[in-house]
């Protein structure tokens, strides 16, 4: 086995031992460097979305310069696809900025349309959502058919570029990618992409049963969408990992979380686990009031990426249920000194590393150029590689 492939094997073993709540040779390091990577390599986010090779080159530069065990994902969006379809969802404030989301543009479904949506959500997406989100798909045949085909070509090319980037990272540097795909929870899907967040919160009060039925109707589609990504990527020796970014729960009352979010979330997590996939929810915001819920998730079958929380409490309440990662503040990488960053990393390792079941990671993805000083990231990761030896 070549030296690079040996490194790859060791890194993968390190990560999966932690996932199994075992103690690897040292604490693995997962790098969530996202679109920050483009700026680090001398590009902008928009350049990487238009020219996907620039995303690949950025990833190669990042893994060459920064010590780590695993990289999160191929972060670029398929800009060519959005252009072919006339997307209204995303825009840039300026050329050097990251892509922006608009809650107003997300409202592509009216509250009166819930019954139609609940009856057949996929048909509703095709017939109602897509023409409202994409100007080219609102045109008559054959213009809309041509746009859909152009978009499909770009979508296929995006998949090919993503696969090639992952293969290059492995063959040249022995660095695996953590995720094989992602899925969005039903209530987040409705709020972020169909009704807008304001609309969804109004529906929670004015049309609670319809909102609940819509979330339930979307659940099988979320599972199928996620599993489709798992089956369409090359086979791997270990279970594949699916990222589940979770958005609304910190903004919900616990009673609303119990009704509109948790049942579907638990069903989806259990479905992925039953199909041999490891879900990795990103618990955005403060989830401490939901820790008792999370204790019900399948043991040793999920990765919990946490943005906020007391590491001692997290380890005590969830350390026997799931592998924990996150909590290292990106803001410290941006504003702190090397010494302050290392002190924080030591605190986290002291609380979370004992016994294994822990992967070092930042509390969120780095996005803009200012999100982290490269020298801080390198210093912290080098420290974890030394101090994190078991």
């Amino acid at each position, binding site marked *: 086995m070549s030296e690079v492939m040996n490194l790859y094997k060791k890194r993968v073993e390190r990560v999966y031992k932690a996932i199994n709540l075992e103690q690897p040779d040292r604490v693995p390091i997962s790098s969530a460097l996202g679109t920050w990577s483009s700026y680090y390599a001398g590009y902008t986010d928009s350049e990487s979305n238009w020219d996907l090779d620039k995303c690949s080159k950025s990833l190669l530069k990042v893994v060459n310069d920064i010590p780590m065990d695993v990289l999160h994902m191929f972060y670029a969006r398929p800009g060519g696809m959005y252009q072919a379809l006339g997307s209204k969802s995303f825009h840039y404030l300026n050329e050097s900025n990251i892509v922006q989301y608009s809650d107003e543009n997300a409202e592509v479904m009216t509250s009166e349309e819930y019954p139609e949506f609940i009856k057949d959500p996929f048909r509703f997406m095709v017939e109602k*959502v897509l023409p409202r989100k994409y100007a080219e798909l609102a045109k008559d045949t054959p213009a809309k058919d041509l746009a859909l085909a152009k978009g499909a070509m770009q*979508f*296929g090319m995006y998949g090919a570029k993503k696969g090639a980037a992952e293969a290059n990272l492995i063959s040249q540097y022995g660095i695996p990618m953590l995720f094989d795909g992602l899925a969005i929870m039903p209530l987040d899907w409705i709020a972020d992409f169909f009704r807008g967040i304001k609309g969804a919160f109004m529906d929670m009060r004015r049309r609670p049963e319809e909102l609940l039925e819509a979330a339930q109707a979307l659940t099988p589609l979320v599972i199928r*969408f996620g599993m*489709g990504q*798992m089956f369409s990527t090359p086979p791997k020796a270990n279970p594949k990992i699916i990222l589940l970014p979770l958005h609304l729960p910190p903004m919900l009352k616990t009673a609303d979380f119990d009704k509109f979010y948790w049942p579907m979330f638990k069903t989806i997590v259990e479905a992925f686990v039953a199909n041999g996939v490891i879900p990795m929810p990103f618990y955005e915001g403060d989830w401490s009031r939901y820790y008792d819920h999370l204790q019900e998730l399948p043991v040793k079958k999920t990765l919990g990426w946490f943005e906020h929380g007391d590491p001692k409490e997290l380890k005590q309440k969830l350390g026997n249920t799931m592998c924990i990662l996150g909590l290292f503040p990106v803001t410290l990488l941006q504003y702190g000194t090397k010494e302050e960053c290392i002190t924080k990393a030591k605190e986290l390792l002291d609380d979370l590393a004992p016994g294994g079941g822990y992967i070092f990671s930042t509390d969120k993805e780095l996005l803009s150029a200012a999100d982290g000083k490269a020298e801080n990231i390198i210093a912290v990761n080098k420290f974890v590689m030394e101090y994190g030896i078991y």
Partner: protein
Amino acid sequence: MEEQLLISWSDIVKEHPELADKDPAMGMNWDIGQEMIFAYVTFLALF
């Protein structure tokens, strides 16, 4: 006649009633081409 967009899960269950209690995710051995269309359309509706 109503336009057929894609083969729905319910249509598949009509042909294969033994799959009625299965989760849609179990259908990944249907046809990867069909799944790619599903993924493409769903991706567009999402992001």
